[in-house]
């Protein structure tokens, strides 16, 4: 009889306008399935011990979650989605903006109020033990509350700016970037990027001050540096054209086979170095 009642109640919950939950019966000590009707709301799902709101199409699977926003869903524990159109998978998450997708973990021992700030609208934010996603996958790349569809970008770590109209720091990706990486420090002690081979040998790195180390060869269209000579060449040019860009550049007269090095940046500032 009890089993029939359980199935009946669960069937009612499926029909819409209702929620079902497993809860401990304080009298019998057994877990029972019960229905919690949410009047005036659309279809809701509540599996577990949660606190759903009365808004349209929100759903909870897990325990100790609360959602008072429409079109939102939480899968996990101790989460709160009080913003619309949020999808959360994880624990100890609390949203602060609409249109987010968070995959986020946390710890009861550390804090139960993670991720209260810095949500990026229109992104999937991924992290664990962090107040903001360590990685955000953006739809579009506008650095504002708008986003633009089919192409987007990935932001690793934070870039924050103060949004006066909401009086809060928000984190956004730069505009028009496919990949944006922020270092942890700015003192040379951390790295924006490391590339290692399958044996763990470092082949490429960029530290937080932009110092780049390439283990292999390096090819470039051209290199612009005050400390690296640039080679200019032309045939039959005896007028020392072009004007040197900087000291130490090379000019090769490919017709006369003469080699010049600039020791001055004025016109004619080339020194012929071959006999």
């Amino acid at each position, binding site marked *: 009889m009890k089993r029939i009642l359980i199935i009946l109640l669960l069937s009612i919950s499926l029909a819409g306008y209702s929620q079902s939950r497993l809860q401990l019966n304080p009298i019998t000590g057994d877990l029972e399935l019960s229905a919690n009707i949410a009047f005036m709301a659309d279809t809701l799902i509540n599996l577990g011990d949660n606190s759903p709101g009365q808004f349209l199409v929100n759903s909870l699977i897990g325990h100790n979650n609360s959602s008072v926003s429409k079109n939102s869903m939480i899968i996990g524990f101790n989460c709160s989605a009080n913003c619309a159109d949020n999808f959360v998978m994880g624990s100890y998450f609390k949203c602060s903006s609409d249109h987010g997708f968070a995959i986020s973990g946390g710890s009861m021992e550390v804090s139960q109020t993670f991720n209260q700030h810095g949500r990026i609208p229109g992104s999937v934010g991924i992290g664990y033990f962090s107040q903001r996603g360590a990685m955000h996958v953006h739809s579009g790349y506008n650095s504002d509350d708008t986003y633009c569809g089919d192409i987007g970008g990935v932001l690793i770590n934070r870039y924050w700016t103060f949004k006066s109209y909401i009086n809060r720091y928000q984190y956004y990706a730069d505009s028009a970037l496919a990949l944006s990486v922020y270092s942890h420090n700015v003192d040379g002690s951390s790295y924006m990027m490391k590339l290692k081979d399958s044996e763990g040998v470092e082949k490429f790195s960029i530290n937080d001050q932009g110092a780049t180390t390439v283990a292999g060869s*390096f090819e470039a269209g051209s290199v612009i*540096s*005050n400390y690296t*000579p640039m080679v200019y060449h032309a045939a039959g040019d005896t007028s020392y054209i072009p004007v040197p860009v900087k000291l130490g550049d090379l000019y090769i007269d490919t017709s006369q086979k003469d080699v010049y090095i600039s020791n001055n940046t004025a016109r004619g500032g080339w020194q*012929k170095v071959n006999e």
Partner: protein
Amino acid sequence: MNPETGKFDYYIQVIPGSGTVINFGSNNTLSGDPLNGVVGHNSTVNAARSLSIGHNNTITQDDNIVFGTYLAPTVQHNITIGRGADVSSPMVNSKYGTVGIGYFATVPTLYVHSGYEVGETYVGDIGGVSIGGPDLDTLTALQLTSHASDGSSYFLKMKDSTGVEYMTVDDLGNMVLSGVLTVDSLVCSHTPTIHTAVGDTSNYHTPNKVGDMFIDSSGGGVYVSTGTARGDWVLLNVLLPLVFVIRRKRKTA
């Protein structure tokens, strides 16, 4: 599906004596740990505050959430998304405090780390991403590991919207950049470095390497280093003494 009626029935398995649990599906096993749950089939959750959504998953450590198939995290505090190879080779997320993502793999292809310490510590609200590799190095925002070590695979490719490559780094660390590199200084044993100074006639300073250039921007001398000891500069251009030039001009006049 109920084989007799042909309709879909709910299957519920209540575990008396445990905390609140969720068990939607068949052939799942839940422990008496509080706040665990399963939605799917053939999954085992023997851990507190853990949830499996999918099939054939195994959770034995607390505070794990998995979504997918053949997933088996082996440490606490993980989120694992994807699918393992098969039931005997599940995808194992063994990195504490991470979100691991992969498919048809025995380990996640991408880990998003909380903080950046290796091990069970973490550093607040910034972290790092590791693609294809072992533990993330300390204080590293993005770490990529190549598939091979023979130049046949790439760490990184950057292409424009039409598919044209603009930058590549292969698994030997060879970097090709089709555009312009603007850099403060380029340090390479095969590329000369320009040193300059005004009015320095003492062959200052000591060359850093063979082949470096020294430009005396006052006297006009152009030197190339032939060694790395002080004075190892060779003057390439002939500098005529000023008196000699004046005399020569007067003679011509």
